[in-house]
């Protein structure tokens, strides 16, 4: 029998490079490598790549990742949510006021905050679907509504924009440690005693390790990326997310519940924002009404660096996480290298432009458009 697996002679063979290029994460992988190389050369001798430095930029990256996972799924489903930054501040404030002023147990406040934010996500989603308006506009309205409500409620119930006293309430709570605590503290104490990691040499904490555990937020970030990427690329629902963003009408024609998928993604994004808001409130012991400003845009940039298209239907959770790591490393790296931190904004804008241009090229090479 002759081999009949010949390819269609009209299709040009894709070069390996071209095929690699259509993977959404490629740009982010390259960017991450470049950023690490850059700072290893410039800041290799500083604390940046010592354990406490790694935990430092790891935590900052994790903050970006938590939001970027929700935003990437939402954007692949074809929608934006500009209210997420405000949602971070809002959720922290709702949680803080519930704990400090209403006086309910922390675990109940956490639960209620998640419910409230999920509801707002639902409202965002349903409004977008029902009105047919661009999600950009609907969520822009909520960006202002939520921020205003956050400041107003802080001033009204607390007389000042920061609600403090959450730390005391959270101590001893059955689940608060899941959001603000540290993991593997026993292991780190042991490592310190063995002299494997650095310990304090004097002061009240002499003998204790400088890094006493891994912040829970880092674990949340890792977990969210794994679950998010798995659902997106390996499950039926993930297929529907791509389809809802790729061509909602075509998806509807074959029976995909597009409206349900999109609303659910709004809820997921809102819950990610609430997770970040609650974690910060517990970690800092306070809720501040200005938390999360600009976070929605930073998350979108992470997702775009990760290879997602602004038009939806294409992207990757892992890519978005790498975009977030690039963010965290650069933001903290500039600090370690003593570079003026305002340059961070310049970097943001530049890398966003670069990523969008690159993605446009990639999209053309997938769809064969010219």
């Amino acid at each position, binding site marked *: 029998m002759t081999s009949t*697996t*010949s*390819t*269609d002679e*009209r*299709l040009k063979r*894709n070069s390996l490079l071209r095929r690699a290029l*259509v993977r959404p994460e490629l740009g982010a992988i390259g960017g991450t490598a470049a950023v690490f190389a850059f700072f290893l050369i410039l800041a290799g001798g500083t604390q940046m790549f010592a354990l406490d430095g790694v935990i430092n930029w790891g935590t900052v990256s994790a903050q970006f990742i938590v939001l970027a996972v929700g935003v990437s799924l939402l954007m692949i489903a074809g929608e934006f949510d500009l209210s997420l930054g405000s949602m971070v501040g809002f959720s922290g404030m709702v949680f803080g006021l519930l704990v400090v002023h209403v006086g309910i147990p922390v675990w109940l406040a956490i639960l209620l905050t998640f419910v409230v934010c999920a509801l707002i996500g639902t409202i965002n989603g349903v409004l977008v679907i029902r009105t047919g308006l661009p999600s950009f506009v609907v969520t822009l309205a909520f960006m202002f509504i939520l921020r205003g409500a956050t400041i107003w409620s802080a001033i009204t119930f607390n007389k000042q924009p920061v609600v403090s006293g959450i730390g005391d309430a959270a101590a001893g709570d059955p689940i608060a440690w899941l959001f603000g605590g540290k993991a593997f503290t026993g292991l780190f104490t042991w490592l310190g005693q063995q002299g494997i990691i650095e310990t304090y040499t004097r002061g009240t904490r002499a003998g204790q390790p400088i890094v006493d555990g891994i912040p829970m937020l880092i674990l949340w970030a890792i977990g969210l990326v794994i679950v998010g990427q*798995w659902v997106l690329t*390996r*499950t*039926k629902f*993930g*297929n*529907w997310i*791509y*389809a809802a963003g*790729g*061509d909602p*009408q*075509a*998806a509807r*024609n*074959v*029976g*995909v519940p597009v409206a349900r998928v999109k609303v659910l993604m709004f809820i997921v994004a809102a819950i990610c924002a609430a997770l970040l808001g609650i974690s910060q409130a517990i970690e800092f012991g306070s809720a501040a009404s200005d938390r999360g400003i600009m976070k929605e845009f930073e998350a979108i940039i992470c997702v775009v660096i990760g290879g997602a*298209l602004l038009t939806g*239907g*294409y992207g990757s959770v892992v890519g978005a996480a790498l975009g977030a790591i690039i963010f965290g490393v650069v933001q903290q790296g500039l600090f370690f290298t003593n570079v003026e931190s305002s340059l961070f904004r310049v970097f943001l804008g530049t890398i966003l432009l670069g990523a969008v241009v690159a993605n446009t090229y990639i*999209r053309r090479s*997938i*769809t*064969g*458009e010219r």
Partner: protein
Amino acid sequence: MTTPILEMIDIQKHFGRIIALSGVSFSVMPGECHCLLGDNGAGKSTFIKTMSGAHTPTGGEMRVAGDTVHFTSPREALAAGIATVYQDLAMIPLMSVSRNFWLGREPEAGFGPLRWLDFKKADAITLEQMKQMGINLREPGQAVGTLSGGERQTVAIARAVYFGAKVLILDEPTSALGVRQTANVLTTIDRVRKKGIGVVFITHNVRHAMAVGDRFTVLNRGKTLGTADRGHISSEELQSLMAGGQELAQLEASLGKTI
């Protein structure tokens, strides 16, 4: 004589005061390609939507395999085995052929509530189905966007056939295609017909219709002008029926039969 797999009897459709269809009769036998010809505005779209369940007819009767049916949604028509491949195809260019093929009916593996896509099965079946239709994919993970218009048409047809279509309604599948791709789609229609599926081929191109049609029905101004068997009608006759007449005959004479 066998029963038609789909039969439309004296179908009428009014939109307010506008009469879009005023008595259209049409039938498809298993394994037959029945061409529905008509110029723009003849009522083809309305008729397709009625067959596919998107419109409920104002009057007339619809039968599937001899039984009277009343479809209220495309989903019901699909469940009865009537699949429609629209011009815009319902393919998502950024997604892979395999993902598109299975969209909405994804095969799953797993245990309990933990379920994931069965890519092995999905890819194998997609490759095999595409091969049967004469398309050798490089890989099932190839994006639909990399396929030509004719190949996309074929993916959509293969999908409908695989998921149990008994009647396949093709809405102008060749209208946007080049010569070579058109030939491929016509070959696909021939393959589908040989599987015993009834094909309704909607077109305004007489040559494409003559190439694969077993029967020809011409629609003009919301009415059927009659049905002819293959070999009993010439393309010139079809052409002038479609245009509804004399002007075209005159034009044709002056242009020397080039239309």
